């Protein structure tokens, strides 16, 4: 049983089942505080900036970006991989811990899944932006058409990626939504206004909590968990193959798929940590998101950080050991030293060194420092993608191809726009949706009572 002495209780405060309902339902009833409106307006401005950048991209073309012949992938692919990485850990968090029967996931999984859905939506925008002419998006789809027997290239990792991401977006949204149906029914039964009752009633699919419904929902969750767990690993492996199947120094490495999957889990867990600290602080949910929960995430992060450090070291070692002059040049003269060394060192310090502070219990207990480190990890992970994409493309085998890259205001605008979109999604989630899985918390409540 979970409630042995060596483990802290999952939920503190000796709650009753009714209290759990009330305390999680309450924030959605109160008018948002000033900070919520301020954050919403700032995010709307960011989204507006992004829309302006998108308008320029569509009306004038990709030429408005800072790309050139040598660097045809710039911020858009960096941001795509960054968002998809963040998007991975939410569902991964919820699903891996579900499969491993870790009951402490119950307080965190809902927010993590919501974050996943928002982040994957942001990620899927970038390939669209990169097309420049959005009207041609349908060329990517496989369908019989009037152009004769013409199909997309099924042998291309880029197409695999497209299929994988669409599947991941659909499956993580379904997993998140179906898990929320019983809680929406709780909101329906608690709602006082007719409009809220009707809306929650519509979206909870007429859930009544019968044993048949629970049995099938649980079974569906397990089945989906098994399928999505495989998908989580495969999707980011496929994203890695976008790079690894090319022959560019720095990209053409077999370590890429596991390295990308671990990187995704790393950045996503860091984002979950950021979000959980905010939810706990703002909505005073200390009894649900306990010190023990945050401590556990910190411990996972320090472990994953060590894997990341091993991956960085392996890349450098193999470049040196292979004695391949192009690999040595890329890693030692273009990353460790050279004009992109700042980005490389930010990556290394933020991802491999700073998280080591989590070995210290004092640091893990100081939530301000934990919050700062969680942000720094995400900054570091963004720079990791920058280092991979830009350094390899800027200086390939032919010096006549060498070029420099700096993003234009349009690319920066698109990135800021997606951050605005992400924050808006999260704010709406805080406001209208049960941010903690009520029925799951109730289910583990008896395990916390001795």
């Amino acid at each position, binding site marked *: 049983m979970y409630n042995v002495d060596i483990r802290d209780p999952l939920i503190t405060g000796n709650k*009753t*089942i009714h209290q759990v*309902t009330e305390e999680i339902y309450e924030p959605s009833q109160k008018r948002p505080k000033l900070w919520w409106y301020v954050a919403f307006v700032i995010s709307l401005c960011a989204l507006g900036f992004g829309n302006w950048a998108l308008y320029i991209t569509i009306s004038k073309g990709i030429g408005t970006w800072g790309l050139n012949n040598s660097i045809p992938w710039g911020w858009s692919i960096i941001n795509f991989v960054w968002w998809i990485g963040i998007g991975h850990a939410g569902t991964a968090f919820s699903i891996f811990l579900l499969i491993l029967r870790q009951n402490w996931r119950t307080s965190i999984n809902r927010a993590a899944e919501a974050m996943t859905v928002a982040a994957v939506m942001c990620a899927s925008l970038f390939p669209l932006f990169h097309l420049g002419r959005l009207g041609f998006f349908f060329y990517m789809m*496989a369908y019989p058409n009037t152009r004769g*027997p*013409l*199909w997309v*290239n*099924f*042998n*291309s*990792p880029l*197409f*695999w990626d497209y*299929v*994988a991401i*669409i*599947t991941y977006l*659909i*499956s993580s949204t*379904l997993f998140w939504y*179906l898990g929320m149906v*019983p809680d929406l*029914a*709780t909101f*329906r*039964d*608690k709602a006082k206004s007719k409009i809220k009752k009707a809306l929650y*009633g*519509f979206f909870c*699919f*007429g*859930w*009544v*909590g*019968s*044993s*048949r*419904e*629970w*049995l*099938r*929902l*649980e*079974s*569906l969750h*397990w*089945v*989906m968990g098994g*399928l*999505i767990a*495989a*998908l989580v690993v*495969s999707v980011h492996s*496929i994203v890695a193959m976008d790079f690894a199947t090319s022959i560019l120094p720095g990209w053409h490495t077999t370590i890429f798929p596991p390295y990308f999957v671990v990187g995704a889990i790393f950045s996503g867990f860091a984002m979950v940590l950021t979000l959980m600290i905010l939810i706990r602080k703002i909505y005073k949910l200390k009894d649900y998101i306990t010190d023990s929960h945050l401590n556990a995430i910190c411990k996972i992060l320090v472990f994953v950080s060590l894997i990341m450090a091993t991956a960085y070291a392996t890349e450098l070692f193999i470049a040196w050991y292979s004695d391949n002059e192009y690999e040595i040049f890329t890693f030692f003269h273009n990353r460790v030293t050279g004009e992109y060394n700042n980005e490389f060192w930010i990556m290394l310090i933020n991802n491999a060194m700073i998280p080591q502070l989590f070995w210290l219990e004092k640091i893990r207990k100081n939530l301000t420092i934990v919050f700062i480190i969680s942000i720094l990890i995400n900054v570091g992970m963004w720079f990791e993608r920058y280092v991979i994409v830009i350094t390899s493309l800027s200086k390939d085998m032919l010096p006549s191809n060498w070029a420099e890259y700096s993003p234009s205001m349009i690319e920066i605008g698109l990135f800021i726009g997606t951050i605005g979109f992400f924050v808006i999604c999260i704010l709406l989630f805080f406001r209208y949706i049960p941010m903690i899985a009520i*029925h*799951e918390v*109730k*289910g583990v409540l*008896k395990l916390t009572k001795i």
Partner: protein
Amino acid sequence: MNKSIIGIYDNENLLISVLNEMDKENISIEEVYSPYPIHEVFKILKRKTKLPYATFTYALIGLAISYSFLYWASVKSYPLIYGGKPLHSIPSFIIICFVSMISISMLLSVLTFLARTKLYPGKRPMIHDLKITDDAFVMIIPKKPEMSENDLIKINSLLKASGAIKIIEK
């Protein structure tokens, strides 16, 4: 005539103990409603689901459909050679087959779940007690024509003695 007896509890343990007693007395229970899933209830009511088997079947169907489609599109419909790879290139089919298998099996499983539980957007449910989604545990015992007056008294007294906070006949 009333069709069923409804017992409402505010404690999971009381519900499980009375369910066990009813099981021993061979009293059939139509349904149990609770704010969260309770595995003991599934066991006592002998509830089982074949959803995982259905998902496995859907996955096999999905795999067969994806592979057949890729073979047909790449070899029959549009036989174009990319980078010297054979038209029937199994390694490059693996990823799409795998991912499509997952998406087809998942979508069909969700549809099966919704169909079997008869859930759909906007459905108006029959709610026995608004507190089921909060902290109430509700048990429905059907009144059968073969039940004698004594049986009904026995059920009522069992419910009362087990600590039901409310007993309703509907």
